[in-house]
């Protein structure tokens, strides 16, 4: 009996200006197999299902345990992490494509640096005085920690941005991930010194008002971050800030 196999259709594109095409692959099934391990297998024998030699697939990956945020791609049409996409739970042929809202580099690799630029814009850090010994940090009660920790779990995978209908060139929307980080740092006893600046950064074009409440983000987030709650909390703070700024003239 022939060994059980898994069918893949993978979108290939040699570079940003090259035409895209689909290649079919047939890979030997193994227990617990995920999409990444199939692509590792293809690299050891880069031949399509039709027997045509091809190149190993270019994709981002690193930790393979859904914590580094590298391997986000579209699998059977859904934005998700390829490492935790177990083939036994996917309909075949498994269709694998790059994220569609970011500049393509090659094959499944895209450039997601926009998120890191956004994090700079909202000053997503706690401005400590320095690294010398200044004693312990502010007291934080478990109840607060339990609000902040989930927000701090964001792995910057950008799935929330990929699935957002408002995240596109026309709106310039920052996306849910950045807004959740604003909530996180505004919650911090020291981080909140930049609260007003962060809220103002989110109040103009591409800011929080672009959100159309489609709620796709919270469903796509592999870390179950309460993104829509964060958006409504920060949205309220942005309005209050605007009112304050208006009153101050």
């Amino acid at each position, binding site marked *: 009996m022939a060994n059980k196999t898994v069918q893949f259709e993978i979108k290939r594109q040699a570079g940003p200006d090259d035409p895209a095409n689909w290649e079919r692959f047939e890979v030997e099934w193994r227990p617990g197999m995920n999409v990444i391990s199939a692509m590792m297998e293809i690299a050891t024998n880069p031949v399509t299902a039709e027997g045509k030699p091809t*190149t190993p697939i270019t994709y981002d990956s690193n*930790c*393979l345990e859904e*914590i580094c945020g590298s391997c986000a791609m579209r699998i059977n049409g859904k934005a998700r992490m390829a490492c935790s996409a177990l083939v036994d739970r996917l309909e075949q042929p498994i269709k694998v494509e790059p994220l569609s809202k970011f500049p393509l580099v090659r094959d499944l690799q895209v450039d997601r640096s926009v998120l890191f630029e956004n994090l700079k814009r909202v000053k997503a850090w706690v401005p400590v005085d320095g*690294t010398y010994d200044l004693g312990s940090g502010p*007291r934080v*009660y*478990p109840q607060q*920690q339990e609000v902040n*920790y989930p927000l701090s779990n964001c792995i910057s995978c950008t799935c929330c941005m990929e699935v957002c209908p408002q995240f596109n060139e026309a709106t310039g929307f920052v996306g849910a991930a950045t807004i959740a980080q604003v909530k996180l740092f505004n919650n911090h006893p020291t981080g909140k010194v930049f609260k007003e600046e962060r809220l103002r950064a989110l109040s103009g074009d591409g800011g929080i008002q672009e959100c159309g409440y489609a709620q796709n983000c919270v469903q796509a987030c592999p870390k179950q971050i309460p993104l829509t709650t964060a958006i409504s909390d920060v949205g309220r703070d942005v309005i209050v800030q605007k009112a304050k700024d208006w009153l101050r003239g």
Partner: protein
Amino acid sequence: MATPRIIVVGGGLAGLAAVIKIAEAGGSVDLFSIVPVKRSHSVCAQGGINAAKNLKGEGDTTWQHFDDTIYGGDFLANQTPVKAMCEAAPGIIDLLDRMGVPFNRTPEGLLDFRRFGGTLYHRTAFAGATTGQQLLYALDEQVRRYESEGKVKKYEGWEFLSAIVDGKGVARGITAMNLRTMELHAFPAEAVILATGGNGAIFGKSTNSVVCTGSAQSAIFQQGAYYANGEFIQVHPTSIPGEDKLRLMSESARGEGGRVWVPRKPGDNRAPRQIPDAERFYFLEEWYPKYGNLVPRDVATRAIHKVVYELVLGLEGQPMVYLDLTHIDRDTLDRKLGGILEIYEKFVGVDPHEEPMKIFPGMHYTMGGLWVDFNQMTNIPGLFAAGECEYQYHGANRLGANSLVSCIFGGFQAGPNAMKYAKNVAAAEGDGGAAKELARQAEINKKLMTNEGTENPFRLWRELGQTMTEHVTVTRYNKGLQKADEKIVELLDRYKRVNLSDRSQWANTSFAFARQLKNMLELSRTITLGALQRDESRGAHYKPDFPERNDEKFLKTTKASFTGTIAGPNLEYEDVDIQYIKPRPRRYDAAK
């Protein structure tokens, strides 16, 4: 003089810690990383970070932390830097706390601490079970702040290839390759800090991330840097076997009360919760009553191997044992271990709240690494190293939750020391050897890109991993080590006939991998031959034919230097600094 320019290679905890110190001191940093630094392997650390804060009324002290670390490392670590690290640890926790790391808290709002392996104290601060992620993010955020102030320039998506070393043997910068355009560049600097992490990829499957190949360390080693204690490889007792990698199941699971067991009766196929307590073999608790499930990793790993391979009690006859959390209430588990339980559930499809996890040891960490002096400088002047890529803090076995503190402490030492060095170093003559080094790298690239042959680099890598895992991990026999070295020599020869199925000059990941593979092969010989020559058992290095520690002969640091010959690296031995704690027998079946 002008602001010193310092290059940091690697954006994990050690690299970022160094960057922060340099930027804070007014230096200018070029930070190189294969991946966006926020995706570095430090993100995978789970359980916590050690510091003797003594917030549980146990009388813990930094001296106790120091003693546990030295004892856990079987006395192989130089004591002066370890002592300094343990003394600095409480301040490092405070700093991380100030930076906003969401550590778990006590009801009074103070830092909570849990127990970890190799100690009897609650000494481990933690943020759920994703502490490494939270620490990395905190440092990443501080570096982003300096980046926005123009003090740090990031080169993400660049791979370090080599150091630029001038005619006097002094480091003057690096060469690196842009992983999109595949272009080579030389980057001059007054000092270079390597913080390039571990080398798990040498073992094929490990708990490490894809980028942890050890390639950078190996490149430097081949340029004349000593590689120290390479034979000391930590195999973590509890990982989830997988097709693409071994996923870590944190020691914190046992720190929070998790118990390791197998059915007493071989072939007992009842569902685990149907097996009454009396018919379960809690072997760690029976064999090590004082430390129980929290013996150090090398001890737990050997115990699991004994249960599986000697007593033949593996689950369903397979190399697996139970790690059981089902007796702990759901709320506590979610609050303290949520992240790792989610990993198990996602990748295995079984809920660990309800059913014991099936785990087995997996390659996890290298205690060995680039040799550095107490200022974190390698034997190449101007070239520093920090974090897992250097050898200094863990001796023959690392204690759990000591890696995060050693990374940050090492980076905090390397940064200021590199600054001090850079301010005083004489200017390079001419280009410091940059053009020559760049030409050498270009030649390597050209040859690889046009090489004719039949060998697939990924398949060679798979063979390397199988050999290393079989012969150079938990139990080592000289015959097996010799076999492994012969295999590596064979692979090095076959590498000459490596054929890239992708010859394009754009985002060519197999090309970058093939370059790393050569360096992996060279470094694996050093690991294997270091193990072969060390005829004793110490920490993670275990030879049944030489079951005792031999201080007379081997209380010494192995220093390997590259020869470029078929004979392999040259090995020499250096005395260990034991000025504070006199070596004593290491045993965990009784209080130490």
